[in-house]
């Protein structure tokens, strides 16, 4: 007992402040502590946020390519009237999988990839708050993606559109496994999104570097935080909807079954209560990428940090009361529609704040025309067009004409490609040196940008016109006398040009992985913390916990004349896997967090979940039971109490001495 009294437990010791030089014994010890062993064992068990982030990026990109190929096949079919390349059933599966892939398997996961990789680096942390949950989130995303594609090779892919309206998606009109795969795949994917979102929220509250108060957090973090908060509230709605639909189909309930007292319209409400906030979830982090990275190329901090951060949150809040604008044509009374129409127009105001902040940043700065700048400036242009066409669709009576036409298809592609794909590719050019230690090509990057930008507008701008000419969405062909021939041909040509631009980007990516010039720690002279560590970063991210005194620590000295942040001298956390927990508002040091090592449990929990959902899809209850038992076993292994992870440890290890009270 006296021993306890004299030497406080390791979680309460006073941390030493000091330096750890690269190559020193302390640094080697840190590296050994945090490194994932090479080989397949490490590959399956790693919980390093950097590996997980890159996996998210690459997997999402693979799905982008799959969705893109689906789109190109559809564009061949639609290039000319009365085409018979595809049967209606094939076309319906292709457009459904295109939507499902792009919206669920590309758009959010790619941003989760950036945030997973970048958050701990930007926040000056060792890892995400829950590293193993992070690994689980990735594995389940991967397995849910494969699950959703499982019936595709058999010609039984989901075929009722990504909105999947009941009763078209019900058993009466859709007897195959198509919709079961979609319904269960979405519930599985919802688990990934939910645990990922929880991880971001807790990481934000707990893992920021000492001194990083709320007003010193980069905008990407606000974007992902807002998206995660939104997801936590929105995903339950869609998971429930898909689960109820599956119950209707396979267990015999009647939630959406009109003949037995169910309500068809219930599906639309449950789906859009989720899907509209989701639309913001897949753009706000991308807007954050631009808000953080564009200023680097303007050689000044972002204009209007506070209004931009606030408008990010405001967008999501308003985003929860606009779902009815997808349902203006369902017969809801005009008075109710007018409220939702008004909210849908008001949501343009926070977007205006961000737009003018970006333009002002360029105007008052000194732009440097590197490839990421081109993508971000192009993004601003596409964002404005997508936003304006959104205002048109928010106008209730005009939307009664626009909805379900190609005008909406044009709008959503300007929004999703303009606000997601362009910042993502710009972001990859920007952070590629951090990911790999090498630069991508400036020359190929420029060529690629102009082809993508031109191809994009040639492909998608004419869709506005097709919509105004009355072309409905989701038709597998059209008669030659409808006036849509020319616009469709132009769109198809543009789509292939755009695809060519993507190929150029991919070629640059692959080439630069091996041949790109070596980048150094901070090739863009950027101000945020991820550039303070080496490229690629060491397994432990930062040898010491940096202390932050401004929003742009690496520019601090040049902007304010003195350097108050301390980046190479700080708290030393070297007793095993440790991270510093800080307070939620001010980022004051609060607690030493014991971080878990690599573990197979997330992988096996993912596999067991996949088995469980496969059992449900095949209505093979024994298989589902097996999967459930597997899940239980994996969770027991995961949660098995271990002393080194104990946060309330009152039996200090005898060798522990670290401590000055």
């Amino acid at each position, binding site marked *: 007992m006296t021993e306890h009294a004299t030497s406080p437990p390791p979680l309460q010791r006073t941390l030493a402040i000091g330096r750890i030089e690269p190559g020193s014994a302390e640094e080697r010890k840190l590296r050994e502590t945090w490194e994932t062993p090479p080989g397949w064992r490490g590959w399956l068990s790693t919980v390093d946020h950097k590996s997980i982030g890159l996996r998210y990026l690459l997997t999402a990109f693979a799905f982008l390519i799959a969705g893109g190929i689906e789109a190109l096949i559809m564009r061949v079919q639609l290039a000319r009237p009365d085409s018979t390349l595809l049967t209606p*059933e094939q076309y319906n599966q292709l457009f459904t999988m295109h939507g499902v892939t792009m919206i669920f398997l590309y758009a959010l996961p790619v941003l989760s990839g950036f945030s997973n990789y970048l958050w701990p680096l930007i926040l000056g942390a060792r890892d995400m708050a829950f590293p193993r949950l992070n690994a689980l989130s990735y594995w389940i995303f991967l397995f849910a993606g494969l699950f959703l594609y499982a019936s595709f090779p058999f010609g039984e892919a989901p075929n009722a559109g990504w909105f999947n*309206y009941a009763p078209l998606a019900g058993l009466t009109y859709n007897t195959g496994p198509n919709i079961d795969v979609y319904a269960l795949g979405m519930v599985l994917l919802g688990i990934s999104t939910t645990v990922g979102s929880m991880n971001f929220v807790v990481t934000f509250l707990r893992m920021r570097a000492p001194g990083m108060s709320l007003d010193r957090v980069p905008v990407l973090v606000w974007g992902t935080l807002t998206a995660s908060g939104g997801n936590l509230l929105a995903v339950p709605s869609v998971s429930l909807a898909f689960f109820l639909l599956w119950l209707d189909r396979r267990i015999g309930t009647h939630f959406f079954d009109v003949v037995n007292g169910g309500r068809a319209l219930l599906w639309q409400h449950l789906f859009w209560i989720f899907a509209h906030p989701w639309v913001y979830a897949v753009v706000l982090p991308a807007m954050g990428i631009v808000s953080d990275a564009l200023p680097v190329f303007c050689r000044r*901090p972002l204009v209007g940090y506070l209004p931009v951060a606030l408008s990010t949150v405001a967008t999501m809040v308003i985003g929860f009361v606009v779902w009815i604008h997808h349902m203006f*044509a369902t*017969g809801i009374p*005009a008075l109710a529609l007018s409220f939702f129409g008004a909210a849908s127009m008001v949501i343009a105001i926070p977007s205006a704040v961000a737009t003018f902040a970006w333009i002002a940043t360029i105007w008052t700065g000194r732009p440097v025309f590197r490839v990421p700048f081109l993508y971000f400036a192009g993004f601003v242009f596409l964002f404005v067009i997508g936003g304006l066409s959104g205002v048109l669709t928010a106008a209730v009576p*005009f939307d009664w004409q626009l909805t*379900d036409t190609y005008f909406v298809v044009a709008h959503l592609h300007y929004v999703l490609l303009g606000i997601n794909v362009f910042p993502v590719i710009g972001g990859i050019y920007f952070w590629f040196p951090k990911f790999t230690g090498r630069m991508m090509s400036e020359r190929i990057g420029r060529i690629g940008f102009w082809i993508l930008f031109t191809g994009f507008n040639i492909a998608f701008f004419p869709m506005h016109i097709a919509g*105004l000419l009355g072309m409905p969405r989701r038709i597998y062909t059209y008669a030659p006398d409808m*006036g849509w021939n020319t616009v469709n041909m132009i769109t198809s040509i543009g789509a292939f040009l755009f695809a060519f631009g993507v190929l150029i980007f991919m070629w640059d990516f692959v080439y630069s992985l091996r041949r790109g010039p070596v980048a150094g720690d901070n090739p863009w002279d950027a101000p945020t913390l991820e550039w303070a560590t080496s490229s690629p970063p060491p397994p432990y991210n930062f040898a010491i916990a940096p202390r932050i005194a401004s929003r742009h620590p690496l520019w601090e000295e040049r902007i304010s004349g003195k350097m108050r942040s301390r980046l190479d001298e700080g708290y030393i956390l070297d007793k095993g896997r440790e991270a510093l927990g800080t307070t939620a508002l001010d980022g004051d040091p609060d607690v030493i967090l014991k971080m878990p090592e690599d573990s197979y449990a997330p992988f096996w929990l993912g596999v067991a979940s996949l088995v469980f959902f496969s059992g449900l899809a095949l209505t093979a209850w024994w298989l589902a039971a097996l999967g459930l038992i597997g899940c239980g076993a994996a969770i027991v292994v995961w949660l098995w109490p271990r002393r080194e992870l104990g946060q309330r440890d009152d039996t200090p290890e005898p060798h522990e001495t670290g401590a000055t009270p």
Partner: protein
Amino acid sequence: MPATHKAIHCASRSTRAMIAFLAAFVCHASARADAPLNYFLHADGPAATPTMRLGWALAALAVAVALIVSVLLVGAIIRKRPPPTKRDASHVQGEGGGMRWVWIGTGISSVALFVALAYVLVTLESVASPRKEPALTIAVTAYDWWWKIDYAGVTTANEIHIPVGEPVKIELRSADVIHAFWVPRLAGKTQTIPGVVNEQWIQADRAGVYRGQCSQFCGAQHAHMAFEVIAEPRAQFDAWYAAQARPHAADATASAGQRLFLDRCAGCHAVRGSDANGTQAPDLTHLNSRRLIAAGTLPNTESNQLDWIRHAQRIKPDSLMPSIALTAAEAAALSAYLRTLQ
């Protein structure tokens, strides 16, 4: 210098090519201005015209804003800046400046949005319901993939007749999945939802044929689920109505064609006044009074009728109409019978 010269020359040439291309495109598009579902340049009734004007106003606003913002963006990128002094190669600016952009830009945008919103609400009020209560109500039921049209005492399919200049109430039902009823030049769209009766109104101020289309994805043949609204003067409408109300004049002795029809078609199709009383497919009592067949897919000619009967699955794959094998004699007999459905 020559290089610059050449670049300018190239630029002007590509601009000229671009303008020529756009001009060709616009001419082409206007030659096709009869795109039958075009609601942006054509509106022919009080449920559609205010919406079209609203669309013009919003589109003009959007184009203006897009141009202004683009000019500001390009201006911000290319504007001349004082040359940097040698020492500030690594110079970065402070956080100050630029906030006026945000306040002024957002302020102007908000005012524009609220003005637009007021116009939207006024338009909504004017198109949501007709000024006077409609005298005529038509019940439309959407089926996979055609439209059943019911007047009091008259049932037809895929062709709605209305009197010119009068508001008409449309009651919308669905027999299966969700569809949407849309006649772009007369009104916006409304979903037909199983278990629910939706309503909308249309009015045509000019006599003519207005194309309609299902706009909510409803399965395999969503693409071929069209219909027509035919607006005609009241007297003509009344005559049409009277003609449609008459049952088929039954022959004393059933022809070979009619026997074939009863045998092969009557399970789904009805001919009022005969023993054919199927309800799952279009009523064919006055088949030949209609302009189109197969839900707006083919002109209603004798050869198209036969083609449709024999090759329905080729023309509309996965539709509920089977392709029916007929010998030449059977085809001739069936055709002869169908000819009597005036």
